[in-house]
């Protein structure tokens, strides 16, 4: 299984965790909703459940629910800037198409 973080994404996750003052890592997932079927989620992880997949990349602990992992295989999490806006972006090779706004996708 390979899910990775870019340097920029890892740096930002670490900063946010530090400033938040608690949390064991970051939880990535997908949700079945949105106009194209699925949506990515990214949350702070305060605890790890038994069934969760946990791995570390560039010093960041990433937690993923087993249901989400099949959709995220091979995904790279990036942190980018677009104009004034900045935030995280999932680069997912499984993605077939996404809705116009990019908030949801299909596999």
């Amino acid at each position, binding site marked *: 299984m390979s899910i990775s973080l870019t340097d920029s994404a890892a740096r930002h996750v670490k900063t946010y965790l530090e*400033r938040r003052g608690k949390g064991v890592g970051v939880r990535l997932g997908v949700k079945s909703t949105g106009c194209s079927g699925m949506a990515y989620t*990214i949350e*702070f992880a305060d605890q790890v459940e038994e069934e969760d997949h946990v791995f570390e990349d560039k010093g960041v602990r990433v937690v993923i629910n087993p249901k989400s992992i099949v959709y995220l295989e091979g995904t790279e999490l990036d942190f980018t800037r677009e104009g004034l806006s900045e935030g995280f972006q999932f680069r997912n090779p499984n993605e077939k198409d996404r809705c116009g706004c*990019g908030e949801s996708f299909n596999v």
Partner: protein
Amino acid sequence: MALLQISEPGQSTVPHEHRLAAGIDLGTTNSLVASVRSGVAETLADADGADILPSVVRYTGHGEVMVGATALSHATQDPLNTLASVKRIMGRSVSDLATLQGHLPYQFADQDSRVPQIQTAAGPVTSIEVSAEILKTLRVRAEDSLGGDLSGVVITVPAYFDDAQRQATKDAGRLAGLNVFRLLNEPTAAAVAYGLDRQAEGVTAVYDLGGGTFDVSVLALTRGVFEVLSTGGDTALGGDDFDREIAAWVLEKADLDAGRDPQLLRKALAEARRAKESLTHAGETVICLEHGTGISKEIRLTRDRFEQLIWPYIRKTIAWCRKTLREADVEPSQVQHIILVGGSTRIPCVRRHVQEFFGRPALSDIDPDKVVAIGAAQQADMLAGNGSGEGVLLLDVLPLSLGVETMGNLVSRLIERNTAIPVARAQEFTTFKDGQTAMRIHVLQGEREKVEDCRSLATFDLTNIPPMVAGAAHIKVTFQVDADGLLSVSAQEKTSGVSASVDVKPSYGLTDTEIERMLKDSFEYAEQDMHARQLAERQVEAKRVLEALGSALEKDGDDLLSAQEREIIGQAQAELEAVCEGEDSEQIKQAVENLEHTSEAFVARRMNQSVRRVMRGHRVEEFE
């Protein structure tokens, strides 16, 4: 492509339902916008990386509006169309401007409207429209930065803003296309930014010296509830004054007169501001003044001299600290945290004096320019429903008491000063005359006893009261102040249900000195006010007695009284009439008592007669 932020566990939003929220510090000199991203509140920068947006708007002749630094850069060459510090005239009426106009280098349009309009190349504009331009710029910046539309914002206002000024700020928000969740007092926002709301208990003082306003607030956190114990300040004291002080000093040193030359004045003010900022770190600086003829003069300003120039202002702020603490009944040593807010608190001697007064170091880790916007952003995030629900209830207080006018030019206070808001209070009033079918409700703000010493907020009429004898109508007047400090007043007559209400609209505002004066006067004139109230109450009582007796005599006087009896009463009546408009309350009291005494028999006979009338044709048992 939408970029994602890290959410709290379980708080991920459904696509297209992200609730983006922002906090806006709409300042006199500078404005900022902040938002919570990935759990952290931070100010949002423009494309050039600047967080601070100068609160300056320039109107050009061809429909173009510039906001911020670009507008500011034209201030010197186009002073009359470049509007700065409009926050000072938010919610102010034309008549309030007399005290300010000397300081504001714009031209006010001659008009009849109560809201002052500034003459620009693009036509007349109001302070609300100018503020809306600033808010619009911040809205666009926030929406670009966050990648979506804002669901709502929290805009901060000085704790001292009155109803009219708060309403004007809300109107500006609406005009800028913003959904204003609520207005938040600046000191409260600062305390939130420092996370003091998550502490167990404690007293915090917030010293806010901005560009155009100064205020100090004492906040208390008890059992998870934030309360503003007291606030005091001067809405026309700030860094702008320091700039003017320096500019005046420099012009005098350079032997120049800027009286008829707005351009030179602007130039001197810009140079003064630069000098002030550089003196935060440097021991001295050089001010360079060019004027029309191409001559330039260089003046050296040391930090010592600068501190001397601004000392009168700092001394005033410390006096306000003392007064505000006293009002909250708190000793300086009981204050656990001191927060410094506003760019002017970077001045070393300001810091020194504040820390000396409170006897402890002040919190200043968060940039004093940004701290208010950051707190507002956290509040906005919570109100948008993005927080984890740990939010605190933030209570604010009314700066001045609210009441209504009653007979005799007296003010009956319904809500006392420093009451926590939101609040609703009601009181019952009644009619003064028989058959009175209308009542005028006059809403007042202030601490004094007489109407003319308080500030009139609004008047409205309750009509269609069914005719009844004086004192029989029950008119319930309700005052409601919402979380933003905006007042609505309603009146209802209980038997018929007729009602009327009014929202207090921005008709005119108070100057800082007026608020200060109103408070001071209420202490100084306390005794005089008490006598005035006593006198007015007796005068009202006298008129009520005369009125009631007059109508009774007219009805039954001939039947129930002998000519001699009637003459005695008439004499007492005349005596009271003679003194009831006078200033001697003891004399009025005696005359009232005398009249009541002489008419006792008449009143008793009338009573018997009406009882007989009611009972005629009935047996006593029926009434048991």
